[in-house]
């Protein structure tokens, strides 16, 4: 019996107790490693997801900045266009198209309202006359002229008027 036992023991040597406990530790470590890997992977996904969102926001911001710059540029272009349209030569061109002419080119009528002095602000009527020129009419004289021309001096009506041809 003993010999059979020895033979069997030689044929199937018993494993030592040590390796058995090591196997158990490895499994735990593996679970731990896998768990950690999963955690890292999850964190990685989270990070990448956040980074992706942040990048998207950044691009949106960048795009908005670009749009703002574009709007600034268009704003300046519009201001320049406004300045161009308000340019004196442009205004003159438009006025010419409307049939307007330069003021000095034609006769004009100078008028004063009743009760006001003729053609003078805060000063008595002109006293100096060019050589050969007719005496400057005062308000009274002008009233006389107006009356002779048949213009009434009713309320709101023109007290005087004249046609000048420079």
């Amino acid at each position: 019996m003993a010999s059979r036992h020895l033979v069997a023991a030689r044929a199937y040597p018993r494993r030592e107790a040590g390796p058995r406990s090591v196997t158990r530790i490895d499994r735990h470590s593996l679970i731990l490693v896998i768990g950690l890997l999963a955690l890292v992977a999850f964190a990685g996904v989270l990070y990448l997801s956040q980074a992706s969102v942040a990048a998207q926001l950044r691009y949106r911001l960048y795009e908005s900045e670009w749009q703002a710059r574009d709007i600034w540029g268009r704003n300046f272009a519009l201001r320049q266009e406004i300045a161009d349209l308000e340019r004196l030569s442009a205004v003159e061109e438009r006025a010419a198209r409307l049939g307007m002419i330069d003021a000095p080119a034609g006769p004009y009528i100078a008028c004063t309202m009743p009760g006001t002095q003729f053609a003078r602000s805060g000063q008595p009527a002109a006293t100096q006359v060019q050589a050969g020129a007719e005496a400057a009419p005062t308000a009274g004289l002008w009233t006389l002229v107006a009356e002779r021309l048949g213009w009434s001096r009713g309320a709101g009506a023109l007290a005087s008027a004249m046609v000048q041809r420079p």
Partner: protein
Amino acid sequence: MSAEFQKTKPGRLAFVAILFSVMAVLLLVRLFYWQVLRHSSIGETSVADELDMASIGWRGTVYDRNLHYLAVPSLVYDVGATPAMITDSLGVSGLLAPLLNVPEEGIAAKLAKKDRSYVVLAQGVATLNGQAIKDLKLLGIKLDARPGRYYPEGPMAAQLLGFYNSEQRGLYGVEQQYDSRLRGSNGTQRANVPQVLFDLPFTQEPRNGADVVLTIDRVVQRSAERCLEQALREYEAEGGCIIVMDPRTGAVLAMAILPGFDPNSYAQVESPAAYLNRAISEQFEPGSTFKIVTMAAALDAGAVRPTDTYMDTGQAVVGGRVFQNWDRRAYGLMTMTDILARSLNVGAVHVSQELGATRFYEAVRRFGFGQTTDIDLPGEIAGTVREPGSPNWWPADLATNSFGQGLAVTPIQMVTAVAAVANGGVLMRPYVVDRILEDGQVVWQARPQPVRRAISAGAAAELTQMLIDALPKETPLGVVPLYTAAGKTGTAQIWIGDKYDDQLVIASFAGYVPAQDPRLVILVKLDKPKREAWGSRAAAPVWRSVASEVCAYMGIPPDLAQVTGQ
């Protein structure tokens, strides 16, 4: 290895594999989104300029007195290209050439250099053209924006305005004088690091420059420039200037100087001398217009009265020198008004001798000659007045100076002095900036600044009357229809180093209108007119044209009423 471990291994590996696969797919999806779906928008932004507009303190606007634009802030673009990215070089060249004002062949040649990573196509392209190029969305074309300046009226009042150069500095004129007010300050940020995920807050907010409102009226300026341009053409003059001023305040309404330049393309001048404001930085011998000063000094000192007479023998001898009238004639018994009406040099010499050197030069000083007017523009010079006590002054100089030769003044000095007579004898400081605005609010307002009394009000009134009487006799071409005008012509010889030029002169006219209630003082100066050498014939008609147009435009009531119509 235990049976239990061997049994679970494939499931765990599959889990890990799936996990990483999902991660990879997520990343690929995002990659596809940005690189494929959003490719075009990212491509566009990469072409766009990198200027951070929000952090820039923009330069202020310059307005005329009626708030019309004279200089506005703008964007200018530097345009470049990456030739390797452009496949259709000829097509791109054709599109860009009219917008860049560059020959198509030149652009095509630059785009053909495929080995170059970047080529500059044009610099300082105007805002509208830059926008048009951006709208083309051409791949491989890059625009870099930078702050610029646009002068909508072009060459109008160029020397007065100055210009804004590529180094973002105001040079000459108002742009230089008020550079510190016009210039804004850019915003600064907390740290100088690349912005990765967010914009850093400003530690100093950007501040735009102030707006400047000038006393200049662009319509008056245009009228003066048009009349001057016509005169230069008609009389074949080399140059000239016209200054229009309000004598009551010293506000300059127009300062026309020709030849000029276009501040939008300021680099395209033959010489930097074109930038100079010759109304304040160039001196000339005024000639007979200076007789206004001589007569004013004598009337103020009581040395002469308007009705005083003298015997004009055609010549006067002072300090060993003989002085003659412009036509070398003797006029006999003449009044003081006749001296102005006939522009008699001998008469002016007579007046200066009656007055004496001390009182004459004191008056010259009081009128502001030989010193700057302190106009708010850069580069003003003081002119040249030699006085008794100077090593190079001789007694004959008093006589010479009395009719405006042998001394040099600037146009702004001359017009300011005449304005003093028009203003009842009070000399005003000339100025061109009326107010400064920040965010639309007035932060500084110019106040008319009397400098001193040059002559008494009585003397000013007497002189005005003399000038009114003298003008039609001296030159009917200077008479303004419907208005009384006071003025004096001048025809000054030009000193050419060792003698006066025999042919070339400076023709001028200085006067004010309406004479009894002056609203405008106008100086016309024509340099070296070849077809007409006399101020009474060349400058006076120009003066009348400007005065007529400006009086009509400003609605100044006529003070000479003539019923001429039906």
